[in-house]
């Protein structure tokens, strides 16, 4: 059963909690006793989507596993801002090894737990888009192929933020990064064919693959919970805006994630054993400009002479997603 919206409660489907909801319909985040797996005092930037996404996901996993959880973490913002000696923000057993080996480290942990007969303890691997779609991709694929009992969570903020906003294979076309400056005849990142790791994960036929955003907590928690209910290799790709890297206001983090979904640029769906099983429909479709304009990384598209052709190409990407995943309600806008 895919995630069911709660229709009759004012904001029930969309807000974090709401006193009117039955307890079981409220999110983990609404709970006064939530784990706060990633605790206060971390050094993430103001409005960090990754910090938020990580707490959302790990708290949900903590609930799903009855707090029997171990996490392996790739090098990156999340690792650096959470564990600078002598302070850690984590409340769970957690290990950081390297940038590119997180999936394999998690495999090792899972193997150790299996050999020790501790089936109740679950393993999560997590990293950013660089650690997942680029440098950690080999280990990730290996983990998938062996169907190791690991839930891998990618927090995708579309570039290498930790090192100063360089392009990753998850960086969208036209976006400015430190290595794709908005200069020359084709400013910003190139229009490639993209690298959709969720789809690649599906091609491994692993038990569960899902995408989510920090803008839809209930959906995110549902997916983590669903993933935690299964064994074998599972993958969740969470879209987490980065105010610093995107040149966005720190208070727009969730708004941007919402717009990414509502434009169709980021498709939210889940798949089991390689087949899409549910798609989160667009609620209020908006043109890509609404999303792009909030971000300085796309500012060069909206100069004195707007780059209409480039914007149209980005719109075409959104439209393609909408067609491919069926993101509109039947007869929708």
């Amino acid at each position: 059963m895919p995630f069911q919206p709660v229709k009759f409660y004012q904001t029930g489907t969309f807000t974090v909690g709401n006193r009117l909801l039955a307890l079981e319909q409220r999110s983990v985040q609404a709970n006064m006793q939530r784990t706060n797996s990633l605790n206060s005092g971390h050094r993430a930037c103001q409005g960090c989507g990754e910090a938020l996404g990580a707490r959302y996901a790990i708290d949900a996993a903590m609930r799903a596993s009855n707090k029997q959880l171990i996490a392996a973490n790739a090098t990156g913002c999340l690792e650096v801002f959470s564990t600078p000696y002598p302070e850690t923000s984590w409340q769970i057993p957690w290990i950081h090894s390297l940038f590119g080996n997180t999936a394999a480290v998690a495999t090792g942990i899972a193997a150790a737990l299996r050999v020790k007969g501790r089936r109740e303890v679950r393993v999560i691997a997590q990293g950013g888009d660089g650690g997942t779609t680029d440098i950690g991709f080999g280990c990730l694929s290996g983990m998938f192929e062996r169907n190791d009992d690991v839930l891998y969570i990618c927090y995708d903020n579309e570039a290498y933020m930790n090192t100063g906003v360089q392009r990753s294979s998850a960086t969208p076309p036209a976006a400015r990064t430190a290595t794709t400056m908005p200069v020359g005849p084709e400013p910003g990142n190139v229009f490639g064919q993209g690298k959709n790791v969720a789809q690649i994960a599906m091609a491994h036929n692993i038990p569960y693959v899902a995408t989510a955003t920090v803008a839809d907590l209930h959906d995110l928690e549902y997916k983590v919970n669903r993933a935690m209910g299964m064994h074998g290799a599972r993958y969740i790709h969470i879209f987490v805006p980065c105010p610093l890297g995107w040149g966005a206001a720190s208070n727009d983090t969730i708004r941007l994630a919402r717009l990414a979904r509502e434009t169709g640029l980021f498709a939210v769906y889940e798949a089991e054993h390689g087949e899409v099983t549910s798609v989160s429909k667009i609620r209020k479709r908006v043109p890509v400009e609404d999303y792009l304009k909030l971000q300085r990384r796309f500012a060069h598209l909206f100069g004195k002479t707007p780059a209409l052709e480039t914007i149209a190409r980005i719109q075409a990407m959104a439209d393609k997603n909408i067609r491919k995943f069926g993101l509109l309600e039947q007869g929708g806008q």
Partner: protein
Amino acid sequence: MLKQCEGSHAVASAVAMCRPEVICAYPISPQTHIVEGLGEMVKSGNLAPCEFINVESEFAAMSVAIGASAAGARSYTATASQGLLFMVEAVYNASGLGLPIVMTVANRAIGAPINIWNDHSDSMSQRDCGWIQLFAENNQEALDLHIQAFRLGEELSLPVMVCMDGFILTHAYERVDIPAQEQVDSYLPAFVPRQILDPAEPVSIGAMVGPEAFTEVRYLAHAKQMQALELIPQHAAEFKQIFGRDSGGLVRPYRCEDAETIVVALGSVLGTLKDTIDEMRDAGHKVGVLGIVSFRPFPLLAVREVLKNARRVVVLEKSLAVGIGGIVATDVRMALSGLHLHGYTVIAGLGGRAITKASLHKMLERAVKDELEHLTFLDLDHNLINRHLEREKQKRRSGPMAENMLRDVGVVAARIA
């Protein structure tokens, strides 16, 4: 139990008796027979409980071992050559995190040019990675060192690399005394990890450490290895008590007591050297050989103790620090500070070139007369080199030197050695 078997098989048996819980395997010659053997044991249920994981790269192999070890499982892997280099980042990480993984390195050359044969370039490239490095002289010692490695590594919470010459030992059939499981069990206690990922007592492992404490962290890593200098001989003594034979230790001197000339070397070449030394002794030369078992930590004092009365030291090593010469030689020289003796570096056996007694005789006869160059490449084909250098002088040819030289050498397949 005495057995005539392959070196890899002997090591696999030893590792199995150490009751590893997670084994990560990625194929690379010449270590493959070891993990193949272990894989079969796990699959057949003869080694249980144990997870045997076929990973997608050496980098993953070490990473899986890191995860497993951090979660409290006794972890093992094996590699060689390019494989070791491919996992380097994780190798450093394992020691940095203090995870007592044991890894066999079936020593092999590093390319380019690609070469699958034995030398020590791979292990030597990792001499500063923070692991303990033990070198086996023969298959018996290779077997024994693995048992000691688990004990040592877990006691110190440091990873241990057991280095054995690829093919020369891994693929050699010879007599080994395979211990009984009870002996191993009485020598090697169950793994009690110093730190563990456990929901019952959560910790964050692998913090980012800045300038304010990084030096201290590195110092403590060094201090651990210094501690190993004390533990290794103790463990070897205990090992002798239980298994009845000398194995391990820091160094192994042979006929060094009154030697004027001492050859220092590591690994399987020690055997050929001993035979050579015996013959030279018979001919009246006061020569000896010093084998180094523990290359990391490097036993400066023990080496100095053996060498201090000699007149000359020949370091014979299967590795080359391009641009300076020897690697082991540099370390040996550290041990000789203030001593006045002649030091020679002999680079031998690179890429599997056989080190023959004949060549050793020739070399040592010149050494005892102090006629040896300070840096000597054993059995170097000077004609070949000269021809190439001459060619280069006339015409700056780019491209791989190896190809040009192979053209001069001609077909190699028919050569015996």
